[in-house]
Every structure is written in structure tokens, then in C-alpha cells.
């Protein structure tokens, strides 16, 4: 284990610190609130000659991901950052990056999608990209955002994966929130990420390669199946990177962060910063003698189905908190809920009542009392033996 140096940093800046240490070959990015600090800080590193990176200040997010695709196919280590509508504008290119198996690392500082226009946190941006073939990691804190950014490089570039990685954190809540962040020594990060050695590269002129060929009805299906095969089997590789980084940093890097789950009867499953609020409330409930627990998946794609089932199978009632709506899904439930209930069904578990709470859209505060009300609801569901309303809302005026 190596000692970290602790600095007061906001979450966006902690990501740019990680990018400075990674020192990628190319960064192509466009400013958008609340991600802008990432691009600004990184531009300063370029201007000061602290990094060797070629920075491409593109004219849109679509162009950002387009340039990343070119640079990655060329054989460079490539990173970018965006949020909200910027991610939506990249959408076409997300699929292309994944389909070409380009190990690009993208930081998303999660923000609500328009319309109406809103610059604050929710997960509708990244959730809209959940089927794009990217690995998705969600950070609870600025510390995790820093740690995940570094690990994302190793995951993306693993020769058995070659998949792009989206590393997400909550806009403003952690993106702008200043906290104590442990930064590992530059040399250790340099060693950890190592050198990127592309298998195929446009700039390897001695072995010319055609990238992005036209795939007709006779091959496209097989190529898509290969893509699902690689992400389906990516979990052990991702975990091995997590473990290696855990050893280096001394900070636990689980697939699922669990609190109180050894004997929890009532559990909340939630991504990102709200896990912290949930744990704080859970502690108070434990003091009252109620066996509550909190599960925070760090990894959302691939969906850690088996780990999640293992974590919640002995609970009496479970709540899945979603910071996004999947419009038109059954009762317009959230995506994390859909995946959780699908996992339960796949495992043949039907007796466990699971309810969905939509919260925090457009940056609406999620308060300890809201979390408390969820635990109360779970107790009632378990005692009544009735699930009741499947999709509920927290902090909403109705």
C-alpha cells in the first residue's frame, strides 16, 4: 500500500488530477456544466506543460467523441468528459466507440437531461446510455471518482476487454462539493496504468487496418454477439483491476459496497452519492435496533446480478432508489429497479417484495427523512405482507 496525500478537492477536480497522472495521449472535450472544471483544469495542465497530452478543443460533444474514436483507433490512450445533453449529443458515437472496441475513458458528471432545461444532478444522462456497450462505474464521492478514473483506464485497455468505460459521479453534489481526497503519488499511478499497447492501430502504417467496415446481414449479428459476450464475461477482469488498485491505495474497491448487509432485513439499493445519505440514516436505525442495510453498486454495466442477489436474498423487503425514470416502462419505473427485479426473476426468487423509489430528479434534495421513510415503508411492507404501490416518489410535491 502506498500513502495518499490528502487535498481539499471538488469531485470534478479530483478527476482532472487523475487525468493529469494518467497523462493520456489525447483528450478531446467540450465544456458543459457541471463537468466544465474537468476540461478547464486539464487545459491548464496542457498550457503549463504538465502533461504531454494533445488536447483537442472540439466544437461539440459529438465531435469530442468522434475525435476520441479517431485518436483511439490511431493507437493513442484517450479520455474525455461530459454531462447531460453533451452525453446525449454523443449518443451515436458511444455505440460506435463500443462497437469498434475502443478503450476510451469518459467521465460523466451526471446531470438531468432537457427538457425542461436543468443543470443539476440526476442519472437520466448516463442511464440513457446504459445499453450502449460501455462499462459504467458510479462514484459516491470525489475520492471514488478519482479512484475510478484511474481504474477505468486499466479496465478499458485490458486486452481481453477493449471496451470503453464511463466513470460517473453526481453533478454538483460531488462534482462541485469539496471534500478530502487522497491522491496517490504520480509515479505509482504511472506504473499502475502502464503503457497502452494497442493490438491494432491506424498509425501502425506497416500493418494497414480497416476500421469501421460495412457489416451486412451476414456478419453484423455475430459481431454484436461477440460484443455481448465480452461484456458478459468482463466482471472477473474488472474485479481483478479493483483488487489490484485496492492493494495499491489501501481503499476498498468492491463491486458492491455493502453496509449492514450481513444480517439486514430491510435494504436500500442506490447508486452514487445518495448511498452516503442512506448509510448515515441506516446507522441511526441500527442504533434503534432495526436491521437495515445499504447496497451501493459501484458497477452498473455489466450489471453485477449475482453479487446483488447474494446481498439481498435474505432480506424481508428491499427498496431500489432510482435517480432516473424509464419513461413508459411498467409504471415508468427506474432502470436500476428494472434490472434488480429482472435479476430476482432470473434467479426464481419471487417471495421478496421490492419497491422502487424515484428521487432527486433535476437536483431535488434527498434528505435523511426521505431515507427514513423508505425504511419505515419497508418495515410496513414486511409486516403487512403486501408490497403496495410499486413505484413511489421521494421529495415530490403531488
Amino acid at each position, binding site marked *: 500500500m502506498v500513502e495518499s496525500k490528502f487535498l481539499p478537492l471538488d469531485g470534478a477536480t479530483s478527476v482532472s488530477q487523475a487525468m493529469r497522472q494518467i497523462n493520456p495521449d*489525447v483528450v*478531446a472535450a467540450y465544456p458543459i456544466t457541471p463537468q466544465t472544471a474537468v476540461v478547464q483544469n486539464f487545459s491548464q495542465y496542457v498550457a503549463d506543460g504538465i502533461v504531454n*497530452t494533445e488536447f483537442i478543443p*472540439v466544437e461539440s460533444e459529438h465531435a469530442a467523441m468522434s475525435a476520441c474514436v479517431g485518436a*483511439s483507433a490511431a493507437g493513442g490512450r484517450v479520455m474525455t468528459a461530459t454531462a447531460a445533453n453533451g452525453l446525449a449529443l454523443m449518443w451515436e458515437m458511444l455505440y460506435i466507440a463500443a462497437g*469498434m472496441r475502443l478503450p476510451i475513458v469518459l467521465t460523466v458528471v451526471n446531470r438531468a437531461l432537457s427538457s425542461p432545461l436543468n443543470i443539476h444532478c440526476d442519472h437520466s444522462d448516463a442511464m440513457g446510455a446504459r445499453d450502449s456497450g460501455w462499462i459504467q462505474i458510479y462514484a459516491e464521492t470525489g475520492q471514488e471518482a478519482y479512484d475510478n478514473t484511474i481504474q477505468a483506464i486499466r479496465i478499458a485497455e485490458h486486452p481481453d476487454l477493449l471496451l470503453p468505460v464511463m466513470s460517473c459521479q453526481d453533478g454538483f453534489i460531488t462534482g462541485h462539493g469539496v471534500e478530502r481526497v487522497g491522491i496517490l503519488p504520480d509515479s505509482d499511478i504511472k506504473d499502475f496504468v502502464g503503457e497502452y499497447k494497442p493490438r491494432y492501430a*491506424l*498509425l501502425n502504417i506497416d500493418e*494497414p487496418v480497416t476500421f469501421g467496415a*460495412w457489416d451486412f446481414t451476414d456478419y453484423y449479428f455475430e459481431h454484436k454477439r461477440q460484443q455481448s459476450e465480452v461484456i458478459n464475461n468482463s466482471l472477473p477482469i474488472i474485479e481483478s483491476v479493483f483488487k489490484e488498485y485496492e492493494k495499491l491505495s489501501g481503499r476498498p474497491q468492491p463491486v458492491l459496497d455493502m453496509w449492514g448487509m450481513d444480517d439486514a432485513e430491510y435494504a436500500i439499493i442506490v447508486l452514487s452519492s445518495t448511498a452516503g445519505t442512506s448509510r448515515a440514516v441506516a446507522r441511526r436505525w441500527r442504533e434503534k435496533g432495526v436491521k437495515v442495510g445499504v447496497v451501493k453498486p459501484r458497477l452498473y454495466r455489466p450489471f453485477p446480478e449475482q453479487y446483488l442477489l447474494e446481498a439481498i436474498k435474505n432480506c424481508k423487503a428491499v427498496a431500489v432508489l432510482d435517480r432516473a425514470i424509464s419513461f413508459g416502462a411498467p409504471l415508468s419505473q427506474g432502470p436500476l429497479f428494472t434490472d434488480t427485479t429482472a435479476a430476482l426473476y432470473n434467479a426464481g426468487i419471487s417471495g421478496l417484495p421490492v419497491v422502487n423509489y424515484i428521487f432527486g430528479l433535476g437536483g431535488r434534495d434527498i434528505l435523511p427523512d426521505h431515507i427514513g421513510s423508505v425504511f419505515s415503508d419497508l418495515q410496513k411492507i414486511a409486516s403487512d405482507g403486501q408490497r403496495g404501490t410499486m413505484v413511489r416518489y421521494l421529495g415530490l410535491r403531488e
Partner: protein
Amino acid sequence: MTERIRISLKDIVNNEERMASGHRLCGGCGEPTVMRMILHAVEGPVVVSTATGCLEVSTTVYPTTAWRLPWIHSAFENAATTISGVEAAYLALKRSGKIPADQDIKFLAVGGDGASYDIGFQWISGALERGHKFVYVCLNNEAYMNTGIQRSGATPLGANTTTSPVGDVLQGKTQWRKPFTRIMAAHDIPYVAQASPHNYRDLMMKAKKAFAADGPAVLNVLAPCPRGWRTESDQTMALTKLAADTCYWPLYEVDRGKTIVNYKPREKQPVSEWLKAQGRFRHLFRPANAGIVEEVQEHIDREWERLLKEEAAG
């Protein structure tokens, strides 16, 4: 550029074809001819980025490829941006020593007129403004031919396309074309040229100048589409000559801000010669449409006069 650049047919014949035969472009298509001329004009390694379109789908039907060079297609609108990423990686990898300092690689982005005039316009503009050292080539067949002849910003007034069809009320496209070459030149980049494959020396010379330029360069090249233009496949080169002789498609260049008209027909032919050679304009020769032909002529005259003035202004 005043340096003499030599184009030797002997050299061309002996050079390797970097775009191999066996691709699936139509007989008479102008695109492969233009591409091969341009690739013959480039010396040394070149990486090519191609927009979605006829050239792309016809040359890379998986698992085959016609490209004996590093080649990438990512999407429709972003060939220029994709190559700007490749060029950036080249600079970075050269700096870090992963690419030898004496290794010179050139960069080429290619798109049709739809990819250039319309959907990729912003992407090209951004890449030019950022000053990446690459050449952008618009293979201009004046409509979306890959999707089945739909009008684009490059389609001229009166042309019959499937989205500007001739009907009881409308007689083909109702607008003139976007002055793409001029807009590219307005980016104040080192080199912009308009060319046509019938004059291969002129086209190849321009390609050489474009690759030698100290910054981004753009070539807008007329590339007939027999399917979309409703012409015989053996008329392709003759048509592009007619385009120059009628001043419908002037051959000119803007070299570091200086406009040079490379071909001035001794006797400028009426545009009706150009129009009547193609089925897409057939309806314009109905008596009721005489006004449209006149209007096309007016556009051409105005553009030609403007070009001559620009040249005279130095």
C-alpha cells in the same frame, strides 16, 4: 504556391494502387477515379477517414476491404473530426517517441457532398478552425446518391431528385447550391481548391499542393453519378469537362488567400449544354421551364464573374 510540382504519368503507372480494384462502386462512378488520382498524388504513408456514403459502403464490405492503407469510417458527419483525432494521436505519439521523429504520415478525410455541405458542415468547420494538418476531400456528386438520389445542399436548382421531385407544381429543386468552396476558403486555411477529374493533372497538382500545405486544406471535386444524374456510364469524364467548359464547375484554387482560376474556357458554353446532357434536368427543357434554365445561367454567370473579380483583386 509557385514551386513546380511535377506529375509524371510514368510514375503513376508504376505506383501501387492504394485503393484496390474489386470494390463495388458502380461503373462510371466518378468517385474511385478521383480517389485513385488523389492517392497517386500523395507520397508516403497516408491514413484515410471516410464518411458514411457510397465510397465507404462499396469499398469495405466486411470481410473485404479495398484499402491498402490504414482506413477508418466512424459515422456520416464526422470524417474530418475523426481524422483530427488521428492526427492528434500522431502528434502525441511522436512527442512521446512511440512514432519515430522522421516518420511522416499524412491525413486525408473524405466525404460526399451530403457529408460535406450538409450533415458534416460543422464538423469540417471545427476541424479547419483548429488547424489540424489534414486534407479534406468532398467527392461531389450533387445529391445523396447512397440513399437513392435525395437533394443535398450541393444539388443545383432544377435538379430532379427523389426529395426534390418533378411534380405538377414543382419542377425539381427550388434552390441554388451552397457556395461550399468559398465558405471553406473563408476559413482562411492555407489551401482550398475546386477540381474535376477530366483534368487529371490539375486535380493531382491540387492534391499535392493540399498535402504540402502548412495546415488544413480542402478539395471540392466533381464526381459524376450515372445513376443519379441519369447519364451513360461512359460519359463521366466528358461530363466533368462540360461542367468546366460551361463554367458550371470552375476549376480554381485559393492558395494562401490568393484566388487563381486554373481554367478559363476560350468560349464559355451555355449551361443548357450541361443540363441537356443529363436526365436529371430533362424536364427543364419543357417550354414552361425555360425560365428555370435562364435562372441557372444567371447563377452561373454571377458566380463566374465573382470568381474572375476575386482573381483580379489578387
